[in-house]
Structures are given as C-alpha cells and as structure tokens.
C-alpha cells in the first residue's frame, strides 16, 4: 500500500484582481505550491454575482494549497488582514497526500 501522510488544505475564494496580492502573501509565508480553480458565480452577504468577463469586476478564483499544519497556521495568520478587509472566504481541512515530503 502506498503511504500517505496528513496535511492541511487551505482554500481561499478571492476576487480576481486581488489574486496577485494573495499569492504574494502566500509566497512570503513560504507557500509556493498552489493551484487555482475558476469560479462561475455565487451568492453571499453582498448579493449574487456571476462570472462576467466583460466587466471583470466580480470574477473570483479559488486558490487551493496543500501544506504542513505549521505552514497552514502561518499562512492563515499572514492572510488575516486581507481576508478581513476584503471579506474573503477561507476554508481549511485535513487531507492525506502521497509523497508528503513535497509539502
């Protein structure tokens, strides 16, 4: 059986124009491995939105990164102010990965 180890997965739903700022913060926190997924639309306290490339103002992207628990704590702390000021959604969970040394 292939060995797996537990790691933390952090997902942040972020406004597209804000993405460079988010990845820069992640970079500073030592998180250099991540994947971006597109979002189509959604609804929240600020009403409904849907991906609309013409305006672009309300496009959002799902930032997803797997890392050790330590780094996850650091990342969440580093992102704190940005999450707060821009009201971003952050989801953390525990997952298993193969070749844990990478993370």
């Amino acid at each position, binding site marked *: 059986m292939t060995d797996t180890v537990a790691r933390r997965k952090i997902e942040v739903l972020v406004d597209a*124009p*804000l993405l460079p700022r988010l990845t820069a913060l992640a970079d500073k926190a030592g998180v250099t491995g991540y994947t971006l997924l597109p979002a189509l639309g959604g609804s929240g306290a600020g009403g409904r939105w849907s991906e*609309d*490339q*013409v*305006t672009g*103002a*309300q496009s959002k992207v799902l930032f997803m990164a797997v890392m050790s628990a330590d780094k996850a704590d650091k990342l969440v702390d580093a992102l704190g102010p940005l999450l707060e000021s821009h009201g971003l959604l952050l989801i953390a969970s525990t997952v298993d990965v193969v070749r844990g040394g990478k993370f």
Partner: protein
Amino acid sequence: MVGGLEVLLSPVILFFVLGAAAAFARSDLAIPEAVAKGISLYLMAAIGLKGGVQVAASGASADMLAAAVAGLVLSCLIPLPAYAALRRFGKLDAVNAAAVAAHYGSVSVVTFVTGVEVLEAGGMAPGGYMVAVLALMETPAIIVGLMLAQRGATVEAQPKGALLHETLLNGSVVLLTGSFVIGLIAGKEGFAPIAPVFDGLFRGMLCLFLLDMGLVAARRLREARALTARLAGLAILFPIINGTIGVLVGTAAGLGPGSAAALGILAASASYIAVPAAMRLALPQADPGLYLAMSLAVTFPFNITVGIPLFSSLAARISGQ
C-alpha cells in the same frame, strides 16, 4: 442631423433592446463570456486603429489638444459634484459615494463606440483623435475618487504604486492606445489589408456585443437590491447633466459638432470595467452591487437609447447645423 427614432430603430440599438428584453423575461439566452470579452477587445482595437488612421490622414491639430485638455479636466472635476449629490441626495456613506463618483468621472468604451457609430451614420463623424481622449479619460477619476474616499472616511492605506500601475496599464487603456499608435504608423495604406476585419465587421460585431450588454445590464438591474429610487434617479440625472456640460465645453473649446457630441457622450458615460476593478482593490468596503447597478444597469442603457441621440442633436443644434 441625427434623428432620435431612426437611431432607436437601427439594428445596433435593437439588439441591445432584444438582449434587455430577453433578460427581463428571464430567458436563458446567454453569450459565452469568453466570446463577449473577445468582441469587446476587438471593438477597442478597431476603434483605436480607425482613430489612428484618421489622425495620420488629417495630421495633428489644435483641436486635438483642446479636446484632450477638456476631457482631462472633465474627468477630474465631474466626480466632485457627483460625490456631493450622492452623499446628500443619494444618502450614501463617504466610501460608496466616492466609489460611485469615480465611475462617472471615467468613461465607457462601448458607449463611446456606439456613439461614434450613430454620429457617423448621421453624417457627424467626430475627429479620430477622440479615441485618444477616450483613453485619457479612463483613469484620472479613479485617483480623484480615492482622494474623496480618504477625505470622507478612514480608508486603509493602499500600496499606491501598485494601484497606479494597475490603473494606468489596465488592459483597455493599453489596447486603445496601442491600436491608436498602430493606426498612426500604418496609415490608410497599412490599414487597407486589415480593413475587412477592423472596418467591415465593425457594425455587425457591435450588434452582437450590444446584445450581450443588454443581457448583462438587465440581469444586473433585476438583481440590484442596493439600488434605491433616489440613486436610480441620480444615475439618469448624472449623464444628462454631464453630457450637456461635455457638449457645451467641447463646443466652447472649438471642436466641431461631431467631436463636441463625442465629448458629451464621454462625459455622460460611466465606467464599468476599469473603475470597478480598481475599486474592488482599493475600496473593498464599497459595494460592487451598488456601483455596477448605477453605471451598468441604469446609466449605460440610458446613454445607449436616449443619451447618444440627445447629445448628438444638442451638439448639432448649438453649432447651427
């Protein structure tokens, strides 16, 4: 002269109306976002090229400078009374009022493009340099808006350099300016082989794009919960006042009726691309549902259907055509 009804019954405007009607009726008609975005980039490249080619043919002129100065001044000053009206009459807080005011100081490329189309069809083609004025007017109001917000409320200090960079080099400014320069270099001859795309297809593409804009604007209006009657009123009043001022300033600055009308249309129009993106970054407390509802769901349709013919005939009348 540019007739009102005739304009309203041209396919370009009718496709906009069709899109809006489909969205209000809750049809699932939708143009893929990537395609709509592609068409909008095409329209910017085309209008930029055509402006550049025209200026290459006619040469630089005093008009050009006058129009540029007038446009810059308008886009810096328009946010000030708009801000006051939004705070007092519109009952918005400082941050939201500043964000909305910035939208009205900036411009809408599609409104301009549609306006040029209508003016040309009516024999009142504006000068090619108006494209450069359009590009100039896109961003200054963002700075003014942020200054208003910082005066009126404690706003998180932003990395200024980053924002300025993002604003000045936003895609539509770069594409408009770049295409304008390419048009200048290429001239009539260089443009000829690409004219089938950038000239021949222009009106038809505009139809398809306005179909999408009708859908987008009407959907947004339907879901605009933050839009009060007062704010909707302002979103109609602003273009009327700003557009009239634009036409008057343009005429006073010595522009011909076509260019004066175009300046009025620019002044009347409100941004829904560059400014929202900048506000999302710099004023995240401001409500996008609000500023997009006003600029995109009310002012844009008003300008397409009423504003453009209005400012065109105003400019024609003043200049005595």
